[in-house]
């Protein structure tokens, strides 16, 4: 708790707080954090209640990758790059939607570890949809209504976007896999350039789950293949977290209030079937299923 936590205001069970702690621990506090406006910023950076034990900057919602790029370049030119790594901590909305400056950071390949804390909606402001909100989820801006039943689009594939930019290291992880987060952050820190790690962070209020179910729900996202845990170096898939016995997506969906309408409304069946197809495609694309002899 040396680097993050002295009185942060996250909800009990918040996946994001677990993820952040492990990121900072992996870097042993030798880092500069650039944080976008959002959940993490609000729970940690109130004036007089700063929860950070590392140098921290919050500028805006939409510019965190650029701010981090500036820190990275300034450290180099001032001969201070030995002080620590530059880390972006940004939400999924700040990453996939409004974060215009992410592609510039990738393009110029600044030495930054960009971490997307993916809780799959704008949770800080009360659960509005983002580009990383999955199909079918009811949010306050994609509610379950008579004409439209939750989000109609897909979850944006930021991993593919990062790889397409030529990022030397791209990975996913989950707040329920602390050792995996630490390993991947350390790996990213050992590679020069613009790295991208997307961490699935269960959100008790937005997802409509209880704090005690965070680990169970987070694990089910992995075990259903809805959240593939993968790792790419220079565009090549180097590791995947295999699934012993893949679970049907219903098991994951039914635990969460954000998907409840899919089990109530008769139209939900087709959406669940489509979500299952997404999981099946993930499993096939990344070879997630552990082959039995």
């Amino acid at each position, binding site marked *: 708790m040396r680097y993050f936590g002295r009185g942060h205001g996250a909800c009990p069970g918040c996946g994001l707080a677990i993820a952040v702690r492990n990121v900072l621990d992996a870097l042993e506090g030798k880092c500069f954090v650039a944080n976008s406006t959002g959940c993490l910023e609000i729970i940690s950076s109130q*004036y007089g209640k700063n929860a950070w034990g*590392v140098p921290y900057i919050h500028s805006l919602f939409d510019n965190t990758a650029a701010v981090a790029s500036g820190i990275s370049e300034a450290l180099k030119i001032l001969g201070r790059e030995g002080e620590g790594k530059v880390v972006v901590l940004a939400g999924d909305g700040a990453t996939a939607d409004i974060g215009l400056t992410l592609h510039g950071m990738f*393009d110029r390949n600044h030495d930054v570890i960009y971490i997307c804390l993916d809780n799959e909606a704008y949770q800080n402001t009360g659960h509005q949809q983002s580009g990383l909100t999955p199909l079918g989820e009811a949010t306050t801006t994609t509610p379950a209504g008579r004409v439209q039943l939750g989000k109609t689009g897909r979850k944006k594939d930021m991993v593919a976007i990062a790889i397409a930019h030529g990022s030397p290291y791209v990975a996913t992880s989950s707040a329920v896999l602390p050792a995996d987060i630490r390993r991947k952050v350390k790996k990213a820190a050992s590679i020069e350039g613009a790295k991208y790690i997307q961490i699935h962070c269960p959100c008790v209020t937005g997802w409509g789950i209880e704090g005690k179910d965070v680990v169970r729900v987070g694990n089910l996202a992995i075990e259903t293949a809805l959240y593939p845990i993968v790792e790419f170096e220079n565009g090549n898939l180097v590791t995947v977290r295999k699934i012993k016995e893949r679970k049907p997506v219903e098991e994951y969906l039914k635990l969460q209030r954000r998907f409840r309408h899919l089990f109530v409304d008769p139209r939900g069946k087709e959406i669940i079937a489509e979500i299952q197809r997404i999981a099946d495609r993930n499993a096939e694309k990344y070879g997630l299923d552990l082959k039995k002899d």
Partner: protein
Amino acid sequence: MMRVVRGFYSVAHSVKLCRPNVICAYPITPQTEIVENLAEMYANGELEKCRYITAESEFAAASILVGASATGARTFTATCSQGLILMSEVLFNAAGMRLPIVIVNTNRAVSAPLSIWNDLQDSMALRDAGIIQIYVENNQEAHDAIPQAYRIAEDRRVLLPTMVCMDGYKLTHAYEPIDLLDQSLVDSFLPPYQPAAYLTTKKPLAFGCYAPPHIYMEFRVAMQNAMERAKAVMNEVFREWAEVSGRDWGQHLEVVYPDSRVFVVSMGSIVGLLRKVVEELRKKGYDVGLIKIRTFRPFPVEDLKRSLSNAEKIIVIDRSLSLGHEGNLSIELKSALYGSSANIISMILGLGGRDIPKEFLEKLLEDAILGKESSGFKGVKDFEEVIP
């Protein structure tokens, strides 16, 4: 060293002498040549201990400088018009974080309709951002303004972004003989940047905290206090500059013929033309003087009150307006002179690069002095407005 150079080069050369650590910009007409010149210097190894970053937008350029400045680097960018407006979210933020970024704005009209030509509408839109705004009349003044801008911005009593505004094309692309500064002079005038607080793992600090209602106002009061303190700091810097460079550009104002009963007030490159026009009018026997406003933010209220205390008529030449109200400079001046009995005439002209011929301006001012011209747009063609 006297050389005939174009405005953009006079700026780029001066920026180099200020030893910035991070330069980041996005090309936009007519600013582009400033950063092109800096890019060339960078490519040729002429910028020591400096990174030149090509950003993907003005928004990103300003954001990169927020990160760099907060890390303790001396930073520079240049932009105008749509670029300045695209930067605006970041610049308001940079001012609130008290980051001494120096910006050159090559004043250009804003869209729509699209115009690459000059007026002052772009920087006026940033009036309330907490950024110091200095307007220059010619390219020597632009050249000299850069080291002064860093001194002002980085002064611990100030710590605000500082923007030097120079007219697009009229100055940026004009050839003028410029006395290019020596490195040694700039080095002695502008010491290396010593940030008051910066991001370091040796002493972790948090920048950009959020402020609930119980504390937000105090941050804004602190910014206003810094602006007020900047008035005195700028006077010091302007005076010192006159001593070390031998060129005295005046203080927040330059007042020509201070005992006049009629004053023309304006800022930017048009002041050069107004000097000549005022001379002509004085030859004709008119008791008219000229006030050049150099500092628009902080607005030199006390200096204007003092200089205009005996004025009977004030003619404000505006090259921008607050649509739905009137010329921007006129609004400011009326507010500063509240309670004055002077007759203030507000003339808006030269928008989007509309030519301002000397004869036209002279007739306009003469008629205004004689009471035959009133406030409003000047030099507009007869046209039929289409109301669909």
